[in-house]
Every structure is written in C-alpha cells, then in structure tokens.
C-alpha cells in the first residue's frame, strides 16, 4: 500500500533520515520504534507532506506522492494524528470531529455513519460530544485526535506517539480502539517510544536508530529482541556491558 525507498530528510545541514526504506501492506498495523530523536516524527511528517525530503521515493498505491501538498495526501487517504494531539480546544468534541471530515462535508450521510461508528468505538466521546475539547482529559483528547483523523475516511492512519503521557489504563483503551479501527479495515503506521505496547498490537515493526533502519521483522520476534529492548529502555548500544 505504502512503500518508501531511500528517504533522505534534513533540517538545514542536519541529516535526520539517512536513506530509510520501509513498506506497509493493506490491512497491516506496522510499528516504527526508536529512541528520542531517532527521526520517527520526521518520517511521519514527510509521509504527510509537511516536510520535503532531499531525495527518495514515497509511493502510495503505486503513485509517487513525494511532491504532493498535505491536503492532497489527506484526500488520497493518508491521515496523520500528530504528536501532542493538536485538537481545537475551544471547539466542542462534535465540532472537532466534523472538522476532521471537512474535505467531504457534502457527504452528510457518510459523516453520520462514521460518527456512529466512532461513538461506538469511543463511547466516552459520545457522552461528551458537546463538551469543549480543551476540557477533556489527556486520554480523551487522544481519543478525539484519533477519531478526528478517522473522520477523513483515511485508508492509512499515521499515529505519532498515541501513548504519550497517558496513564496505563487509558493507554489500554487507546490501544484497543486502534485494534478496533484496524478491524474496520484501516491500515495503520504507529510510532512509539513505548515499543512493547506498539509491538503488542502490530503485525510487523521497524527499528529506527539515528535516521537509519537497523532491524525489521514480525512484531513477535522484535518484542524479544535485545536491541529493541535496549532501544525501548533508551540505552545506547555502547552502554551495554559484556557478559
């Protein structure tokens, strides 16, 4: 569905992604894990068209989207839930959700259906649909951010650190709802520092280390991998003691 080859992205002179290649098949949940500053958010932003790569190839269903502006990429069916949520605090929950569907605002019937679907996956949001989004708890705000991305009817959902700052109970809820969305047919790329959580819900994963992918495989095998455990613990390779 999405295939990326040899992606190079820099901020000025600083090279952040140094030739990244990865792919996501229809129906998969793929996890991208790595320590702070590895380049995970950079990769997500680049796929969404928010950043221009120096070179490389990003193909979505065979089409090269590397030069497309962000709104065109949303229209194609790729939706980003950015790090830190970025919901519209003064608007109500419902208004936020409708905003998520702005690209298809004429499709009243479809929007209604999707709202029903969302409210069944996130009953909390239904209860609070007329509440101001800024007054939601952290977990609820994260649910809203995911739900709002869903309202664009994406086929590929990019989730950047959905677990950030959430209590374990809420985290469980969010992860369950991500699985639920995947069952609805949504393909998902999830970026997480909380590697173990991401690997629990995903089918495959990639490990990013300072802008380079150093490992990939099925999530089950990655969960047990010492390199992943080290990345998860945020330890540098050098710090590891010998036997």
């Amino acid at each position, binding site marked *: 569905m999405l295939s990326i080859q040899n992606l190079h992205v820099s901020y000025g002179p600083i090279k952040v992604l140094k030739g990244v290649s990865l792919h996501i098949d229809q129906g998969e949940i793929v996890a991208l894990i790595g320590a702070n500053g590895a380049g995970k958010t950079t990769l997500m932003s680049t796929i969404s068209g928010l950043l221009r790569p120096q070179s490389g190839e990003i193909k979505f269903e065979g089409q090269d989207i590397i030069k497309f502006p962000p709104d065109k990429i949303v229209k194609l069916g790729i939706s980003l839930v950015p790090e830190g949520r970025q919901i519209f605090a003064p608007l109500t929950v419902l208004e936020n959700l409708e905003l998520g569907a702005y690209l298809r605002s004429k499709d009243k019937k479809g929007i209604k259906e999707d709202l029903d679907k969302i409210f069944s996956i996130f009953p909390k949001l239904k209860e609070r649909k007329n509440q101001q989004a800024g007054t939601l708890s952290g977990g609820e705000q994260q649910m809203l951010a995911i739900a709002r991305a869903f309202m664009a009817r994406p086929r590929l959902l990019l989730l950047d650190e959905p677990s950030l700052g959430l209590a374990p109970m809420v985290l469980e809820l969010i992860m369950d709802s991500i699985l639920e969305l995947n069952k609805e047919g949504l393909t998902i790329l999830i970026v997480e520092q909380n590697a173990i959580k991401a690997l629990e819900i995903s089918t495959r994963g990639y490990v990013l*280390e300072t802008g380079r992918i150093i490992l990939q495989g099925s999530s089950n095998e990655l969960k047990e991998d010492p390199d992943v455990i080290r990345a998860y613990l945020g330890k540098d390779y050098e710090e590891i003691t010998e036997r």
Partner: protein
Amino acid sequence: MVTESRIEFLSPDAWGQWHTELLQSVVNRVYTRVPFYKNLLDKEGIDPSQITNVEMLKLLPFTTREDLANHYPYDFFAVPLRDIVRIHTFKSSQLSPIVIGYTKRDLEIRRFLAIRAFNVFGVRPEDIVQICLDPGMSMWSLELKEAAESLGALVIPPDPLRAKDRIKVMRDFKTTVLITTPSYGLYLLSIAREKGLGPRELSLRVGIFIGETLKDKDRKELEKGFGLRAFSIYGIMEAMGPVMAYECRDSKRLHLALDHVIPEVIDPKTLEPIFNGVGELVITTATTKANPLIRFRTGDLTKITYNVCECGRTTWRIDPIKGRSDQLVNVRGIKIDVGLIRRLLTEYCEGYEPKFLFVIRKKEFLEQIELWIAMDPQIFSASLPELHLWIRNLETKFKDYIGISCIVRPVEKRTIAPFLDRNKDIVYLDNNEINSLLL
C-alpha cells in the same frame, strides 16, 4: 499482509522492496556494530546510504573464511556477548579457528528453515527420523535433530553404530525418514541389499540428502532401493545453517531462503557478478543478529534461476552444487582444506614441505582419503620400524587436525610426479587406478 508461510510466494516486485529493506538494515547494523566492516567501508569510502538497492551490493567488500579466522575472536560480532547463546568453532587454514556465534533468534531462524523444508518433504510428527552422519558433521546433525524434534517427530541421532546395526535399527524401529549424505546412503543401501532388505522390509518414505551433490543416477538408485522419495538440501554452517536451500516437490533446483539471505553468483577470478551462469555462490545474511555476513564467499559453484517455480514459489533457486572454487575438498560432506594439510605436513616435517598427493579413493560407495608422501632423504632416512611409527603418528595428527581419518602412504617420487607436474595435488582415483599406480 505477508505471513511466514506465504513469504516464499511473494511477487517479484515485493521481493525487491523486501531485499532493499533487509539489505539496508543489515548494512546499517554491521556499520555501527562490527569493527571489521566499519573499517572496511570507511577505507573504501562507502557510506551505507549508497546501498540504495540490491544491485548496489557490488559496492560492498567480500567476506572470506580467511577474514573470519584472521579476526578471531570478537571482531565479527554484531551483538554483545551476553546476547549470544551458542558459539560454534570451525577449523580454518589460518592460525586461528573460525568462530560463529548465534543469538537465540539466530538459532530459531535456522531451525525454522529446516522445519519449513521438512514440511515440504512431508515430514510429520508421526515420523521416525534416523540421522546417519559422520562425526565430522556433528553440527549438522545437531541442528537437524533439533528441527525434527520440534516438529514432534521421533529422532534417532547419529551414534557410533556400524552400518549393519544402523540398518537393523532402521528395520526394527520402522524408520520413515532417513537423513544422510548421498554416498553414505548408497553404502547403507548396499548393506541393506546384502541382508536382503528392500522397500518391502523397510518403512522408509523420505530421504533427505545433504553435504554432497545428489546425482541423478544415485537419486534413482536410492529411491528405488529404499522405496523413498529423495530430496536434497543445501547449507553452510557459517551462515543460515543446514537448510539455506531445499528441493521442493516440483523441481530439482533448490529454493533459497530468500527471506533470510541475499544471494549472488560471482566469477571467482574477476569477482564480477554473474547473472545467468555458473559461478561462486555469495551470501549476504539478511536477518542474522550475532554474526551478520556481507557477501560471504561460500566457495560453492552453482547457478541461480530467478523465474517462478512450478510449485508457485518465487524464491530464487540454485542448481545442485557443481564443485568448488577454492582449495576446499568435500569428502563425505566434510569440507577439507588442502592448505591446512600442507600446514600440518610442514609442521610435522619441521619446516620442510614434502611433496605429496591427496588421494580421494572410492571404496564401497564411500570416499576414503589417503595422503601419498614422496619419500626423500630430507624428511626421512631412518629404519623401517621408525618409518612405521612416523606414519602412524602422522595419521593420528591428521585425524586430530583435520577431523577425519586418513591413510598415509610413503611412495616413490615418480609415482606422484605426473600429477604434481600437472599442478594437481588432489586426485580422485578408483581401486584399479590405485593398484596400477602402486604396483
């Protein structure tokens, strides 16, 4: 979505993407973790991001068995020692042995590859698997045994029994799967025939042949004589283990584990890639954690076929091995380094290298090795009893050094001169030829 069982059927396009990803991550891994490769790439001015696809493999340096030995003990490890659960040591022609480590996952992958092949061969939990391999192939036995056991089969691992007794066990325990080398298989068959045992008396269904090339004639003979279906497998212990490639039911070419290795064929002289012809098989491990190898030169000569097999698998296939591109000789599945024999002799003769011929003799289907040494006053001028002792000691040393027994024969220089003049220090001879030479 690609599951482990479907991966061998991936479309060619998808393989391109997989291999690019796998190759890049292994190169990134060795560049940041393996001093040997980091130094080599830096010296050649290669940045890992130049490896944009599999064709760019050609930029990367080769790894040889000598490199592995010369960087004993730790230079090739890509993980800390505490991630390693097994270490395997190999003889080498260099001063140090070769050491290969495996993480838990590395061993699981090797076992998975064996089980995947066993499944294709129709090996089932109800099967009784008898492994008959030389002690020199003990690592092969061990890994195949583990794979068959985790499949749930009953396994009879190799033991020091005589062939006669092995056949008895095979009959009485109703062995259904035999794992052995082609030559030992033929030897067992001859013993079975002597005892009047054939397909009727034996329960064999599947024969898995390793270590040597299974020739068509021998395959027919084994299948008919034992009443089994023969399959051959190919592997090297340095990378991926005993089942890097296996025969499916539809082809006599062997399917490579394309999900775990990136194979190439090169001209062993010019080192240039060959895309449609016979050359040396070169392997880059894609998933190995402890000792990832970049462009490892196997020394085995073969050809890669890229098209889709009748069975539907899209994994590339290799022809049965056609020989070796280096000085390693395959005897009963054991690789023997002629350089190592030379070193042994020079050591034994205290610095002087005698003229010798390494003779591989076919006897009762099994290859036996002999070392013919030209007697000259430089190495020997003492009495006959002393000569005998000298020979026995050399035979003992040989077994210890090379790992396989050998008969040492003192010969006259003129007996072996015709071979040495033609630059041959290894010859295959049958009994008649040997008798006429030694007369």
